[in-house]
């Protein structure tokens, strides 16, 4: 698995090309607001079971609140 850092312009480009968005913040923060179409994939419970909702044929973009 490769993990490549990207900026928001590339996020937009990848989404338009069919990428999946996944927010790793806790449920409350995800529920308050998230990027359009993002699914909730909390970091604490990330694993093969939780990742099963993802489509393996499409790239995945993960994001948190910020880089800190």
């Amino acid at each position: 698995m490769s993990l490549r850092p990207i900026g928001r312009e590339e996020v937009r480009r990848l989404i338009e090309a069919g990428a999946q968005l996944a927010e790793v913040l806790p449920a409350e923060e995800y529920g308050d607001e998230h990027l359009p179409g993002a699914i909730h994939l909390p970091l604490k419970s990330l694993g093969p079971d939780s990742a099963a909702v993802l489509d393996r044929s499409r790239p995945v973009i993960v994001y948190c609140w910020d880089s800190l």
Partner: protein
Amino acid sequence: MGFDVYDYTAGKADWISVGWETERAEGVPREARDAMVDDFETCSPDDDAAGLVERVDRPGSVLVVNAEGILLGRVGPHQLHDGAPGATAEEVMHPGPPTVRPFEPLEPLLERMTKAKVTEMAVTSTEGRLIGLVRREARPGPPP
């Protein structure tokens, strides 16, 4: 896991800070971005400060932004009064004004502005780009 995974490192804060669309729940507390206005004056750093007199005459001040839209400072009546003849906006401005991000909780912000007797607060992106202004007369209410 066999995926191509990308990390949007700047995250949700970055996305919100440039005003891009999100899916937001109803009933969340209002933030600076819900009350900000765009009817304010700006100028370039190399603008002639003397030419700003009429624009600063109205309540408030003129915000100095560079070619990338980054907020550099403010020019108000005090700065014009103290500036030398022929000075530029950058030379007279009050540099590095306080700013908040669009997702700053609105009600506490307005309380702080009231206590500090601040009438306007610039709202900037995570890169420092000016995107709006919150005025103290903004009143929190039901979220949009």
